[in-house]
């Protein structure tokens, strides 16, 4: 499923969607950036509560297709501008990380 379709289907709030047609395959949950860099796979949805500027670089470098901020975490404007420049999709879920993952599991 594409990043845009996944967000629409589950009612995730779109914060940055510069690459809407990107396919989402699989999912990784984590907040420690090095861990994510090393373990997340290409095209994964990455679910995190980390919302600082560094998530944009980590998402771009690890080739995840979508960042889902769990628990309604809101990044600042700077993060979203950086994400758009780096072609990183970011959405926001009201649910905790685990429940967000459970909800999308059959779509990714």
């Amino acid at each position, binding site marked *: 499923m594409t990043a845009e379709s996944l967000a629409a289907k589950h009612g995730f709030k779109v914060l940055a969607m510069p690459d809407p047609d990107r396919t989402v395959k699989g999912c990784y949950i984590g907040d*420690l950036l090095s861990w994510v860099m090393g373990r997340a796979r290409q095209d994964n949805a990455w679910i995190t509560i980390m919302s600082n500027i560094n998530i944009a670089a980590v998402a771009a470098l690890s080739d995840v297709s979508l960042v889902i901020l769990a628990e309604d975490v809101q990044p600042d404007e700077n993060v979203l501008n950086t994400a758009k420049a780096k072609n990183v999709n970011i959405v926001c879920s009201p649910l905790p990380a685990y429940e967000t993952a459970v909800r999308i599991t059959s779509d990714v």
Partner: protein
Amino acid sequence: MSEFLNFHFDVDGDNFVSAGQASVQMKKNMRQLGLSPEIIRKVSIAMYEGEINMVIHAHGGAADVNVYEDRIEIILDDKGPGIKDIDLAMQEGYSTANDHVRALGFGAGMGLPNMKRYTDDTQIETVVGEGTKITMIVYLG
């Protein structure tokens, strides 16, 4: 010496806002060179870890990436405090990062292990009080 392309980056120390800029730029460069996604991913991750280490521990430094016909060489050079115990630093989960750094999501103790995992060869030259030079190689094809 065979022909190679050099990409040089100055890594700004203590600036977590722009941390990763060199790695992101290098990733773009590698895409333009037509390298495979797997090679790009390996080099990007290893370089990012090195770049973050230089920001966290060494007040910045220099990163050079040399692209040869058969390999990519990443050289990270800093004038930081050096690594006291390399064996310990290579252990997953070991970190000397402070709480501020950890709050940003760094300091997982995966930096050097990831650099080793994603490259074919990692050489660390370090002198306590003088600095650290890390040379990593990823073979193409």
